């Protein structure tokens, strides 16, 4: 898995700890993500930054800024590998 897929997976995983199966359901609503959650496999089609932004927005719609902060904290290890222009705007 590339780093963006890992970021998406980590975000879903962290959200699942907080809001349970709703986290996976919400992630499946993002068109750019193809998810096989039993295998923890996430594929991204199209712009990876836009896909991550859409995923974060999905959680933000339910719980607001705390959802964004949780996503950011969950992927700090991965975002440090990205250059500023590679970083999805929702994780800045």
């Amino acid at each position: 898995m590339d780093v963006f897929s890992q970021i998406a997976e980590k975000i879903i995983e962290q959200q699942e700890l907080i809001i349970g199966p709703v986290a996976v359901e919400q992630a499946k609503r993002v068109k750019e993500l193809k998810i096989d959650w039993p295998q923890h496999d996430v594929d991204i089609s199209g712009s990876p930054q836009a896909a991550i932004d859409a995923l974060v927005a999905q959680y933000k719609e339910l719980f607001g800024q705390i959802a964004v902060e949780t996503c950011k904290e969950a992927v700090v290890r991965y975002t440090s590998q990205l250059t500023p222009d590679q970083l999805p705007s929702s994780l800045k």
Partner: protein
Amino acid sequence: MLKINSFQKVALSSYFVVLLLWIFLQTSGRTGDNVDNLNYWYSFLFGLIPLIGGLIGMFKSHIWGGLKSVLGKAIFFFSLGLFLWGFGEAIWSYYNFFMAEPAPYPSIADIGFAPSIFFWILGTWFLAQASGAMHAFKNSKVAKTLSVVISLTLAGVAYHMLINVARGGVLVPEGETALKTVLDIAYPLGDFLALIFATVVFALSRKYLGGFYRPAIASILIGLAIMYFGDFSFSYTTTAGTFYNGNFGDLLLASGNFFMTFGVLGFASLPLVKKESAEETK
């Protein structure tokens, strides 16, 4: 406009009925010593809201992962507390209707009432993690200071209200039974902790909490705070010997239970969210 689900609509309608009945009790002179079965019906009816709402909440917590997720635990424990409180109120009504006891305290009803506060505090602990209060506490010195200031201020005010005002400065009067002694300590302590937890979580999560479920979480915390004043009124009136079923304290208890039930039921359904795409989020 606030969107509410069908469970919340039923709870809201039931609360309006209870509210109208309370107004009728007051305007028809069913106060003080002039109470009759209608006052007992009031107590019974408002207890149904947390009893049934709590049961629904426990079942619906599986939507959020039940005891496997932070939010699922919060909803489950709040619901369990509500169910137990409603159960206690049903037992209370049994004493009212069938044993002609207007204020059965302590009694078997306390098996429902007493643990409910513990489960609400537990629910608030998990809600603190899901709502951003814990995040704020860990990452902000201001939040830490605010938590301490709120806790100390409320501790002083709540102690004065519950011990000095409601109980005349005596926590456990002489000659009480062991059960009443335990309950006389457990209720104010539980109420006091619940009020502090609710206020701190509400204050700390304000910056981070938003989105579709913000009103539901706010409703739970507001309900918890109202319960403190309801229990305070109960302590005060039972100590002063002025308690009657359907008094103002009972209205507070009905309202506190309603707000918490209404909030918990907000999590009984998921919002209909349109298919999200990268284009739509730009």
